[in-house]
């Protein structure tokens, strides 16, 4: 599993940006138009009139997007097949996984949606393994034919701190895991996955990329709490220092700023196009080509309409003069 290389077989940079963490720091600013380089290159036939290049570009753009989606789905399928074989050693402890396994697991889950993760769990269960990928044990099997199971929590977990907590769990859900701890670990990962598919994610979207295992999450929560107490006062004071009001800027600077605020800024619009994934030149000005022409000829003076002969009877209708009955 090589998480650090770009793994998608696609030419769409937005997909790359969404799936690899490295591209965060340097988003592609400008890019040579790659819309011509495609598997769907039409043959130049002499008999057919040549296709409108704009239509061609739009069609290619959509074809590329669909291809990227398919590639992403293939990638997820490959990842599922790889993750079924985790952990690498049969004696691994799910609470303290080896660093390599944990890294591979987290890196492989980046393009996943929660539904893909459910498929992964189902696939592991079919193999007879616990649904949590870092757990080498077998999943629980119930001999009873009941559809539901009653599980009891620890002592003192019930309402009001008395008695035990009771849960009624469907048998399929109960049998997914080897233990309740593994169920918690797996669900802790699941809620961190990004809900939108990888081809719609944005490059700077951090959701679903910085996954934490349950143990890490708890550890860091504790650590953070401890550090916070000590740091608060200092931090707050430091931030207060920065909080002085800026002196009013000079009028010239304001004018400069305003002049930079033009509507048609090529660099910015290109950046925006990259961000939206419409890197195609066809989309840069929007889909409809609007051309506004200012009226330049003001020499003619405007006069009010005058009565012409015959107008009192209604005049002509597009050249036809109605006859009196």
């Amino acid at each position, binding site marked *: 599993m090589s998480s650090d290389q770009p793994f998608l077989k696609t030419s769409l940079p937005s997909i790359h940006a969404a799936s690899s963490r490295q591209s965060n720091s340097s988003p592609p600013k400008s890019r040579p138009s790659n819309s011509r380089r495609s598997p769907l290159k039409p043959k130049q036939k002499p008999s057919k009139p040549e296709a409108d290049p704009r239509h061609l570009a739009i069609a290619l753009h959509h074809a590329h997007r669909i291809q990227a989606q398919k590639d992403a789905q293939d990638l997820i*399928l490959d990842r599922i097949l790889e993750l079924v074989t985790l952990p690498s050693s049969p004696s691994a402890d799910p609470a303290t996984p080896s660093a390599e396994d944990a890294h591979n697991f987290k890196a492989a889950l980046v393009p996943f949606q929660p539904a893909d993760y459910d498929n992964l769990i189902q*696939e592991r*269960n079919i193999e007879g393994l616990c649904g949590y990928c870092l757990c080498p044990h077998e999943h629980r099997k119930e001999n009873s034919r009941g559809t539901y199971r009653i599980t009891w929590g620890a002592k003192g977990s019930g309402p009001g701190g008395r008695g035990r907590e009771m849960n009624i769990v469907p048998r399929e859900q109960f049998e997914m895991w080897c233990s309740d701890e593994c169920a918690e670990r797996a669900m802790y990962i699941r809620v961190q996955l990004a809900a939108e598919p990888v081809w719609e994610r944005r490059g700077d979207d951090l959701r679903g990329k910085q996954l934490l295992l349950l143990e890490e999450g708890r550890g860091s929560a504790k650590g953070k709490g401890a550090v916070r107490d000590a740091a608060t006062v200092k931090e707050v004071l430091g931030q207060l220092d920065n909080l002085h009001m800026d002196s009013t800027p000079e009028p010239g600077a304001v004018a400069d700023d305003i002049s930079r605020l033009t509507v048609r800024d090529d660099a910015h619009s290109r950046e925006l196009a990259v961000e939206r994934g419409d890197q195609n030149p066809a989309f840069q000005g929007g889909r409809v080509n609007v051309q506004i022409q200012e009226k330049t000829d003001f020499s003619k003076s405007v006069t009010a309409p005058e009565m012409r002969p015959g107008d009192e009877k209604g005049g002509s209708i597009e050249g036809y003069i109605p006859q009196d009955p």
Partner: protein
Amino acid sequence: MDDEYNFSVDDAEREAIRVWRTWRTVFEMLQDRGYEVTDEEVKIELDEFRNKYVDEKGYPSRDKLKIQARPTEAMKAKYTPLPTPSNRDPQPDCGTIYIEFCPDDSGIGTKQVRSFNHTVDEGNFHTGIFITKTPISPSAVRLLSGIPGRICEHFQEQDLLVNITRHELVPKHVLLSPEEKMRLLARYRLKESQLPRIQVSDPVARYLGLRRGQVVKIIRRSETAGRYASYRWVI
């Protein structure tokens, strides 16, 4: 409690009958698609099926249930694309079909599908049909359709218990050859996208193994016109 005593025997009997009916439907399907199968194979009796494919406990042994069939000349003609200036002698886009019943009772995932894919690839079959007793997992479905250049289909046994095309309310579906399709479009001066459509996932389309872009002729009885033919484009 005679019921209790006979439970396992009845169970085996029921199972054998279910698999026999599926088996017959599979052969009818092959015949309707245009593969070479004999009439004895299609009309196999339950006793004969039992002699051949049932183990000593009375249960059908699914790992023996494997079929290979070659397309007939008529089917090859139907699947041959029209010659183009660049390709003057097109080859038919169909070939030997391979059908396998999955012996596992539950939990069919990527493992079984991968071995099936391997068999299809190894035997260089054009088409493969994987028949299971229970539904297969979503990733397995995706894996099954993922072999480049080969067509793999999946059916559940219960889908094939009854041959749906023999039902009186299901009209007759006939696949058109590329030439017939071209003539149809020329006759009515249509583009293919102007035809009514049928989905690839339609039960009859699945039964006939239709592919995107083909056209089927649907012949139904009509009270006023006797017979009424309509055409649908597979999408």
